[in-house]
């Protein structure tokens, strides 16, 4: 299980620079916008399909956190936990979603960093997410790395790492993925 075993390559440093053509860059941007839109509009199933089966979703708890295995993470979720979260969000008995949270994810500063040793594409972006629940706005901001595997004329997400500027802060419930 990826949650505890260190087989998975969770590094996000590019080992090789690559020049992507303009239209690829454009498609990558659209891929990220599309992902954000699926989350904004609660299209969980479509969002889940963006992932490789072994893909991991990571929100570190520390700045420059080196590993999900030696310290706490806000999220270190494999496919099972991703699906479970989506089931929960749709549950009529999720008390903490009564009333529901709504969010808007603005993705910007999209940059192609290069590829990792497996040839996965590393795409970096900035995410500002504004979330609303019970008359309160929450702001989440940070940088994102998507590790992408080519899949036909699109990609699948192998790793998504979100480094929040307040990753080590105190939080009320975090209900939604970023």
């Amino acid at each position, binding site marked *: 299980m990826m949650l505890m075993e260190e087989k998975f390559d969770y590094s996000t440093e590019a080992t090789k620079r690559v020049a992507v053509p303009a239209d690829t860059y454009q498609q990558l941007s659209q891929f990220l916008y599309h992902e954000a839109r699926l989350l904004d509009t609660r299209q969980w199933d479509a969002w889940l399909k963006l992932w490789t089966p072994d893909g991991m979703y990571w929100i570190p708890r520390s700045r420059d956190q080196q590993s999900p295995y*030696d310290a706490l993470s806000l999220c270190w979720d494999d496919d*099972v936990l991703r699906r479970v979260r989506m089931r929960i969000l749709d549950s009529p008995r999720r008390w903490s979603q009564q009333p529901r949270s709504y969010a808007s994810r603005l993705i910007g500063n999209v940059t192609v960093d290069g590829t990792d040793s497996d040839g996965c594409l590393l795409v970096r972006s900035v995410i500002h997410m504004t979330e609303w629940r019970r008359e309160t706005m929450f702001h989440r901001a940070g940088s994102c790395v998507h590790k992408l595997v080519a899949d036909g004329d699109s990609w699948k997400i192998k790793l998504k790492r979100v480094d929040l500027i307040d990753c080590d802060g*105190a939080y009320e419930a*975090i209900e939604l993925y970023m």
Partner: protein
Amino acid sequence: MPYSKEQIGALVRPDSVNKSIYTDPELFKLEMQRIYGRIWVYVGHDSQVPNVGDYHATMIGDQDVVMVRADDGKVHVLYNRCPHKGAMVVPEGNGCAGKFFRCPYHGWTFRLNGHHLAAPMKLGLEGTRFDPASPEFSMRELARVDSYRGFVFASQAADGIPLPEFLGGARSSLDNFCDRAPEGEVVASKNVFRVIQRANWKVFYENLNDTMHARVTHESAIQAARDEVKAEGLEQMPLRLHIMENNGQPYEFWEKLKLVAFDHGHSYMEGIFDPGSIKKDPISHAHYQTLIDAYGEKRALEILSENRHNTIIYGSGSPHTVFQQFRIIRPLSVDRTLIEIQVFRLKGAPEEVYRRALMYCNVINSPASAVMPDDLEVYFRCQMGNRTRGGEWVSQHRYAGTDKPIDGGLVAINGTSELPMRNQFNAWKQYMLAAA
């Protein structure tokens, strides 16, 4: 509106408490004085300040304090205040002060035990009432500091019972916590979760041994785990789902759990899951082996068999022995509480045991987890509901009047008893009256 002894006494009945206990800011102020201002409170773990000069700045009740490793090798706990103009000497969080503390405002320095070391240009203070030997010119140390197996506690009152007596039966949880390490010691992880609860601090304590809430509050996670197993056609529930799904055990399961309450508000409940059989589960087995090597088979088995879920150390928080965590409960205001969650490595145990504890904490205690948000929601709902005129009392009737005395405490006749809550408020009343 100062509270009289009678008024405070009347807030706690044998089977219920007045809702103002959760909502009145005046009572909160009194708690800061009479409870957090007096009793032993957990400050942090020894391993958070391994080297001389290392400090951990935190709060005890409404007081900024700093836990520091001094040159005597001991851990000291000081108020985080410079006696000159009152500046917090170190910022919140962790760091290393070096050989001494130095205030960022005018550079007064203090030994690591807080004693006045030097003020620049001392000549200007000569001939005045300034006296480097007077505590008025030092960083003041808290009245009493002690530790139990590496867990450091402090009390702001010079008098009172010693720490071991205060902990009473709860010591056995800290013992088992550490015994689970082949080397008998635990080490705090580098980072912690910090979760804000928009409710009074006592609500969290009540919840910790509240076996009746699990099935109801956590129904969405329970069901999601079951649905996932079914949808994916899994043969057995993986551990990361089991720890969610287990909350859905039938009431009969909860009824059989042992609930033990101790004097001073402490208690514990029996474990609700075995992280894995020491026979079949490779992590548990490896852990077991290291314990056998350290203690022999009998003792190893004894240690692992002591399976407890949440222990409560009233005013401090909750150690969890099986998943090696300590949840520190810090009241912020009458309707706001900070929960700080530490995870520990067991010295000498396989790294996988620690990873399993991390995994448990990520999945159960993270503010982004499947479980925690529903707890936070119902706590908030209690805080809101208790503002209304819809009733004066909060009920703790379940199995009231049936608790059995044991040495230094009480034991419940049923695992769904609200004994732990009654025990907490009994202690609360004693604290609030004793110091009146």
